[in-house]
């Protein structure tokens, strides 16, 4: 009897001791002088054409910080893997980032279908890998039970849809409304947002499988919609920029550009890209969209000026645009998160740091950040913009109005948020 008690006591004590010892995996990717981050994102293909600049922009910002002392003496490196916007490739590339490249954390993973698949396949939850500032607005990612290590940055698509619904209600009463959306969680998130806001479209939203919106398809869809409604209906486009371009070009061909008021979701409304894809400036003039960052052409904005400067010095050959702005903004948030986690850098530590201090981080965003112990939502609002023929996005109606809301049934409110001042030279000094 005595031996059994002694044995069980030893076992119990060892178990307790062993459970206190921190797992080695918690600071994988961190050395005394370096931090390795990773991202799986489209670099090639039609999505790559649009989003290909983002990882390079992040890296440029990290290089800038490295040149100015790094984070607590450590230099940040970014491993970039191309997933061509394909979920299965994202799954294998993300697994490679964890198993092969052994990165500390992921930052800026792109795409709804791609990332949701990659998250499960690469067992990110099991390995407690921080999944920072993902490049997608699918509200499902705010579910802490399913995505315990994920922090969003983009406002959710549901939020955007609710804001758009309010814009339509306030500015286009009585007009017919239609929607064309990508047929996956991204598009359906938007559709759901409109429903939550109480908006009913004149006909069921047209959903198209990702990658299948050809010119012929677009022409057919526009012809049908134009025939269905008199006046000047509002057409909401919830897809990627290459698809918005296809639809706008179809409108040009059918001379329907002035027939509709185009309301393009932020994912698909980058003016520069639209112009680069062959859409005429006269077509872009008047397109309504939403954003949470300042426009990349707004040279009066201190963040924009600073990022342009960094871009010129560390991202040679790349033209500054909204995607570069977004990438650098996320990188800036990342640096602040790494700083806030302290010198003893662990995965769990990084996650708690963002929960505790993240909502106060400085960034170019014109809307508030929502990270807390209970919320994984990043920016929680939008300002409404209207594009002009020069490709600039200016406040709709002339005055900047910031709307905030949630992904649920909460109302859309007007906010008087003012963002934190930019740290000197764009180099965070937080802790």
């Amino acid at each position: 009897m005595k031996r059994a008690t002694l044995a069980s006591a030893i076992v119990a004590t060892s178990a307790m001791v062993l459970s206190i010892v921190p797992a080695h995996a918690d600071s994988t990717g961190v050395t005394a002088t370096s931090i390795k981050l990773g991202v799986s994102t489209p670099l090639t293909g039609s999505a790559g054409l649009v989003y290909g600049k983002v990882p390079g922009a992040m890296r440029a910002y990290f290089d800038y910080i490295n040149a100015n002392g790094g984070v607590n003496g450590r230099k940040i490196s970014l491993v970039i893997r191309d997933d061509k916007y394909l979920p299965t490739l994202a799954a294998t590339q993300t697994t490679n980032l964890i198993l092969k490249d052994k990165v500390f954390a992921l930052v800026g993973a792109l795409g709804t279908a791609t990332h949701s698949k990659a998250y499960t396949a690469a067992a990110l939850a099991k390995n407690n890998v921080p999944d920072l500032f993902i490049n997608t607005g699918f509200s499902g990612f705010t579910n802490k039970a399913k995505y315990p290590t994920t922090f969003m940055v983009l406002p959710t698509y549901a939020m955007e849809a609710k804001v758009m619904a309010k814009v339509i209600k306030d500015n286009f009463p009585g007009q017919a409304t239609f929607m064309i959306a990508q047929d996956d969680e991204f598009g359906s998130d938007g559709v759901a947002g409109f429903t939550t806001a109480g908006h009913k479209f004149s006909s069921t939203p047209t959903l198209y499988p990702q990658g299948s919106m050809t010119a012929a398809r677009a022409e057919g869809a526009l012809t049908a919609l134009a025939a269905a409604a008199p006046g000047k209906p509002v057409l909401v486009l919830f897809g990627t920029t290459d698809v918005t371009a296809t639809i706008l070009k179809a409108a040009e061909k059918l001379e329907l550009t002035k027939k509709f008021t185009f309301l393009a979701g932020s994912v698909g409304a980058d003016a520069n890209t639209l112009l680069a894809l062959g859409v005429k400036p006269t077509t872009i003039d008047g397109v309504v969209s939403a954003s949470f960052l300042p426009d990349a052409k707004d040279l009066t904005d201190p963040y924009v000026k600073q990022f342009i400067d960094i871009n010129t010095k560390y991202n040679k050959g790349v033209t500054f645009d909204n995607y570069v702005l977004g990438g650098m903004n996320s990188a800036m948030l990342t640096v602040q998160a790494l700083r806030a986690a302290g010198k003893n850098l662990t995965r769990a530590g990084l996650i708690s740091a963002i929960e505790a201090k993240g909502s106060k981080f400085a960034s170019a965003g014109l809307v508030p950040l929502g990270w807390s112990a209970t919320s994984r939502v990043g920016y929680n609002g939008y300002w409404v913009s209207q594009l002009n023929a020069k490709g600039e996005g200016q406040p709709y109606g002339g005055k900047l109005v910031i709307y905030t809301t949630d992904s649920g049934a909460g109302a859309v409110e007007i906010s008087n948020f003012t963002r934190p001042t930019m740290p000197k030279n764009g180099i965070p000094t937080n802790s």
Partner: protein
Amino acid sequence: MKKAGKVHKPTTTRKRLFLFILFGWLLLILGDRVGDLELYQGSFVATYALAITSIVLLTGYSGQLSLGQSALMAVGAYAGALSIFNAGWHPVVGLIMSALVAGVFGLILGLVAARLSGPYLAGTTLALAISLPTLANQFPILGAEEGISFDVGPSPARFGEDFSQYKWFFWISALAALIMVFFIVNLLTSRYGRTFKAVRDNPVAAQLSGINVGRLKVNAFAISSGVAGLSGGLLVMLISGVSPSAFPLSLSFSLLGAAVVTGLYSLKGVILGGLVLVAIPEIADSLVSRIGGSEGFTTVLPGFIVSALLILAVVFTPNGPGHLLKKHH
């Protein structure tokens, strides 16, 4: 008359079983000594080797050129996913369903294919390869691009806390591949299997000696599809879910390429074929990091290597590396 060369004693089934078990046991031991990354890659090797086996059977042994193995893998993958996720069956049952459903599908396809020759068969299988995965967008139950989760569950508790998920994947895929390949090897060395060779080498003579060539081709299609289906199920197990983008046309081409490179007429090269497919992106990766280059270069290099290998194989070893070795005796 020259001596015909060494006379082989045919390996008995029992001997073969012993060899397979021995090999499996070696894999097990190896699996304990390597890291998660190698286990992950090893699982892909096993899966691809199985897929290549299906091609060797179909094209090498029954002479039917199909460009649509990826479609059959997709059928198996979806069948397995639906069984496990929707019907709630045990993962092993799911994998069996992958093979079975794909096999039945292959049987039907084979009946159609038997009427088609050369390029017409190639064209049909090509069309199948691009159109079948897109059906997932048409029927909501197939989950469109989101796909269906394929979860074989964590390793059994009795193996302990430290038994990684990747080791579990490796055990499942290696075991499944070994069992299936054993079955196929036995089939091909049996009396029935010898009729395959007869049909391949001289269909007219085979027909004249009473072999039902049409029936044989259909059977080959069915069996090959079953094998492909199982490999499809294993593949989506590794990525935790099936979706159309897991089975692009390029997969068919890569598998065919690997099969040609490592020997279309014999099963001896299938593992090597799997290794080649897994190794090439790795080699390309390390080449690029060594000599540097834009991300664009990184993207095109693996394709370049595969294609170059393919051409070299066709030009220098059209009958597989085995023949090349024989020449030097």
